[in-house]
């Protein structure tokens, strides 16, 4: 469960999502992990503003593939967001090293009827993770995470 603050540029509004993520399936092997999640949530704009979808990923120490489909139903507009992300690690670091991933991400949004593909670079070391991507439509796509 979690809370996310959303600034939706195409629809020019801001709101809070109370979200719930549930692990549907996971497969661990000596060299890989695959996950499939269901996600749903409701917006601070009211109970008739909600979303649901699935997302999943598969990764080894060298390769990554992820996807997600999310349907949002809101007062003003119903729309669907999809993404596909593929990446590789240019080197395989040991525990404690700086780890680097080079990725490409494609996003499609039915509200704006746009599709965009852009590069993403991801670093993590220790408990800190930093991910940055850039695309023409929504500009910077930045994620920071620190494990407490």
């Amino acid at each position: 469960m979690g809370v996310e603050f959303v600034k939706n540029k195409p629809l020019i509004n801001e709101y809070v999502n109370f979200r719930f993520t549930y692990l549907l399936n996971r497969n661990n092997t000596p060299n890989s992990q695959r996950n499939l999640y269901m996600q749903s949530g409701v917006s601070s704009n009211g109970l008739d503003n909600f979303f649901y979808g699935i997302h999943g990923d598969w990764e080894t120490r060298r390769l990554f593939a992820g996807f997600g489909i999310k349907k949002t139903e809101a007062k003003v507009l119903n729309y669907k967001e999809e993404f596909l992300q593929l990446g590789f690690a240019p080197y395989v670091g040991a525990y404690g090293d700086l780890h680097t991933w080079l990725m490409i991400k494609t996003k499609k949004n039915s509200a704006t009827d746009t599709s965009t593909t852009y590069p993403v670079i991801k670093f993590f070391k220790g408990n800190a993770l930093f991910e940055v991507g850039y695309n023409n439509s929504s500009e910077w796509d930045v994620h920071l995470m620190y494990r407490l």
Partner: protein
Amino acid sequence: MKNLYLCCLIACSLVVLAAEESMHQMHDHEGHLHDTMVDGSLLKVNPVRFDNFVSKLTEAQVAIISVNGMVCDFCARGIAKTFKKDRAVTKVDVDLAGGKVFVAYKINAKIDFEDIKEKILSNGQNATNLQVIKI
């Protein structure tokens, strides 16, 4: 701006590839340590990582846990943190390449594989084997 970003991305790639080559040259090329335990099972660990781990340990038990699904450093951090909460645990390290977690316990501590399995599972991975060495 986009071209600048792509150039930065390519430059970063070259830097990390060079770093990898540098790290590769510094690595020990003896591979994994294959030693036979008293019960006849084979101990397969990274010798450099394992030697570093046990080098300052005395009067301890070392649990070598084989883990499936431990593919990233960030996930392994969670495993290490979970074990460090255990008062019987004195040291934890991870061999990502070998899929192993090294846990040093106090010499008189009881090591329960079911408890270890639960700790690993709570982080999203599966413990598949346990070997214990007394130092």
